[in-house]
């Protein structure tokens, strides 16, 4: 019994954290408390997760490995960053943050289970819950009151995804009876010709495409993020992506391997579409948040493209890319938290005007992170770009050409942002919190450290990644 409790302790810590936060959510002064509690329990959970990373309660339902530990650690760190930065927003706007903190902890919980999941039922369940959790965040923290259409779209898409995942679950359960990956894989292998099985697989993949916000299901992602608050955007750009990515690799390697050729074709189309739409969308957007939502679509498309054949090398490459993306996008979000005009965080691109003169350090750091995202050397983004594009260069030169073309278009969007910062603007920016500067510096230091010593990322982390193939 104690053993079970111990193995479940990371999740229990998170649940306890949520419990504590919700039961002390009466006054505005609790902002600090909510975030502090959330961070404390997140830290405890992280610690316990590291200690019991390879222990699972039921063997065929969850499985821990260095691979899962890596993704879970990333998840925890991302959630911690979101909480750290969001506190600035909530304090500044004097808005109670208990629901937000609870949702973040909840999503970490779902995310951890999703990454560890070795059973389709758990996977689908966690997906459904995570989607619902995201929905709550979008619903609660919409910036504009007239954005009900976006919520409706998300809701429709969410229900559709639930239906698809339910359909997939039913089909597999009806046909196979056992929903663990290990049981489903040989079954799918044998019944490849079956249209229902194929449909169930496609439905499952569609759910993930929706959760990643990849094209053509990107509508909800860009529109929802455009009208929500900065902490929620930061969350969406970091946390669900890590969780879904870990799960997606597991799913493809341990369950859908038989459909590799068909799925790869599907992934390729989705990835190329995402890359194209992400790049063009980023250029077209006037809303900074929407721009970064599209940027995310582009990068996730590229990661999917790099996952080709799901070999150890491609998975390694995509992880390196994901890591560099996460660091850069975290940096950008941090800088966005540091830019305020009369107490309001920036929404549109023209509001950035004059940032280079009024907030030179933040603007400079923002440019550094943006250039890192664009893959310009010597920033970390280059390593990610190099690892992914070298995969593409190996066999698929046309795709490489397309990606590079799109990267030029995307760079145009980046340049637009930087160029706006150099425009003249007389409106002063508010004083930025020192914590923002600290976060920026830490982020930059981590990037610098990895650039100088890339073996930690390219060799040590990769060793952990490759355990998923064993």
């Amino acid at each position, binding site marked *: 019994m104690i053993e079970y409790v111990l193995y479940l302790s990371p999740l229990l810590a998170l649940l306890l954290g949520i419990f504590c936060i919700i039961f002390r959510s009466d006054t505005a002064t609790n902002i600090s408390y909510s975030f502090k509690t959330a961070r404390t329990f997140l830290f405890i959970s992280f610690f316990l997760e590291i200690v019991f990373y390879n222990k699972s309660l039921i063997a065929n339902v969850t499985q821990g490995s260095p691979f899962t530990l890596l993704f879970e650690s990333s998840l925890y760190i991302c959630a911690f960053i979101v909480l750290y930065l969001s506190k600035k927003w909530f304090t500044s706007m004097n808005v109670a943050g208990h629901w937000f903190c609870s949702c973040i902890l909840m999503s970490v919980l779902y995310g951890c289970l999703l990454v560890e999941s070795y059973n389709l039922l758990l996977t689908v369940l966690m997906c459904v819950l995570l989607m619902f959790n995201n929905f709550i965040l979008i619903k609660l923290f919409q910036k504009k009151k007239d954005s009900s259409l976006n919520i409706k779209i998300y809701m429709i898409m969410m229900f559709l995804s639930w239906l698809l995942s339910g359909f997939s679950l039913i089909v597999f359960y009806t046909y196979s009876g056992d929903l663990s990956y290990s049981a489903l894989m040989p079954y799918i292998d044998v019944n490849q010709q079956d249209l229902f099985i194929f449909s169930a697989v496609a439905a499952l993949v569609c759910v993930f495409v929706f959760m990643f916000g990849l094209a053509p299901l990107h509508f909800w992602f860009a529109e929802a993020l455009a009208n929500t608050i900065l902490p929620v955007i930061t969350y969406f750009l970091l946390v669900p992506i890590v969780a879904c990515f870990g799960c997606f690799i597991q799913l493809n390697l341990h369950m859908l391997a038989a459909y590799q050729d068909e799925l790869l074709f599907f992934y390729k189309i989705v990835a190329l579409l995402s890359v194209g739409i992400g790049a063009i969308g980023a250029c077209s957007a006037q809303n900074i948040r929407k721009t970064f939502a599209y940027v995310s679509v582009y990068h996730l498309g590229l990661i999917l493209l790099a996952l080709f054949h799901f070999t150890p090398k491609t998975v390694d490459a995509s992880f390196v890319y994901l890591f560099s993306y996460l660091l850069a996008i975290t940096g950008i979000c941090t800088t966005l938290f540091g830019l305020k005009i009369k107490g309001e965080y920036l929404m549109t691109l023209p509001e950035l005007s004059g940032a*280079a003169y009024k907030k*030179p350090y933040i603007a400079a750091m923002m*440019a550094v992170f943006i*250039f890192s995202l*664009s893959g*310009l*050397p*010597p920033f970390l983004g*280059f390593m990610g770009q*190099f690892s992914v*594009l*070298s995969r*593409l*260069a*190996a066999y698929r*030169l046309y795709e*490489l*050409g397309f990606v*590079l073309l799109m*990267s*030029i278009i995307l*760079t*145009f969007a980046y*340049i*637009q942002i*930087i*160029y706006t910062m*150099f*425009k*003249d603007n007389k409106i002063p920016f508010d004083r930025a919190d020192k914590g923002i500067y600290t976060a920026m510096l830490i982020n930059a230091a981590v990037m610098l450290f990895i650039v100088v010593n*890339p*073996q930690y990322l*390219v*060799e040590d982390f990769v060793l952990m990644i490759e355990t998923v193939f064993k």
Partner: protein
Amino acid sequence: MGSLLASFLLVPLLGCIFVLFSQKHKNNGYNVALFTLSANILLILRMLSLCETMDAEFLYSYQWLTHPNVRFILGVDVFSLVLLLGVYISLIIGLTGLSSEQRRNKSLQILTLYFVWNMEALLLAKDIIFFYIFFAGMLLPLFWLICLHGSFKKISSSALFFLFNFAGSLLLLISMLVVYRYNRGSVLLSAVGILDIPKHAQLIVIGGICGAFISRIPIWPFHNWISFIYSDIKNPLIYIVMSMMPLTGLYGFIRFGQIMLSDSIYTFVPIIETFCVLTMLFIALIGLSHRNFLQKLFSYSTIYYLLFLMSKLLLTDKYQMNMAYSLFIFLIVNASLAVLDLFAENAREESNGNYRGILAYMPRLANLFTFFVLIAVGLPISSMFWNNFILISALFRESFMTGIWVMTSTSLIGMALIYELYIMCDTRLSLTTNDTVCDISDANLAFFAGVTIILFLSFFNPLWFVF
């Protein structure tokens, strides 16, 4: 030598950090930048003195990654050292030309030092991955320099400039990736052209490399963006930094020398040659039509870069040192003329005088100006004269018609410079200038006199400063 190389590479970075923490609104940052550049010049001289022969090469490597085996290989030879010396002296000249307000600007010094770091790493990089890193990496300081210290009109063009160069560097990335596909790990620049790879891949590699380097050199029809950036630059340092961009492309062609040996290159060379010649003539005519010395100087530098490019494409490696000596002088002269022109321009603005005949009131500046223009034109006051003679002779040997057009272009632009000098010196053309024009200071005069000595002595021995 390895430690010397490593410290050489670290000095500008240290300089950046020192400038970053220097006091605001004081000249400390400027002094640090000046000291940093001077320190590295001393290191270059030391390294040159260690090179016993012209072919001597020193290597230093740093294991960056073990899987794949990527080593950061630095290499230095007399050729790259001469170019580096030219770059450093040019930048010191640029720093000298800064106004007191510009000297107090920390960002200008930091970005310049960062650019220098990229530039020197590029000139030292021996493997393709690191070459690409610094080739693309130098876009950032340039972009920022233009954005921060150019007018707003420039910012929009700098966006185009960045995109264009970024696209160019992506071509090099494609080449690098294809090379990486066939040879995991570091591949030496000199080995890129002779790799055992399939024909189509070789074509991609060579096409990418040529495209990337050409994107840096203002060849028609892509010269427009750079000429727009050049126009009306009021900061000599930025002008000089900008004018080094084509050097990176040219250097790339020189360092990837072995690609010239592969069969695939024959597809590209005549095309590049034709475009070079057309651009040279076109730019020479434009230079003749411009009524501004800086514009003419831009045309001049473009034509000379193209001359060097054609020398590289058409000639063998035995002319490499002639090119290096010529480039060394060219870089310094180009920088000096830019700074001197801005001195004249400032004097004109201060005195509310006329551009025409301004030098008649500034005898010191006029003498210096004349000296540098004569060197630029190719008169025998520096080693550029006889090295250009050797290069152009060799070009004639390879292609008579190319030689003719090259000579026509260089002559036209030389005449244009001299013509403009006469306009600036002619007292009869000075209509409204009052007599209160301030000539350049004693310190500046002494500095430029030093530069003239360096150049003049090079006529007798290009490496006279190496003991």
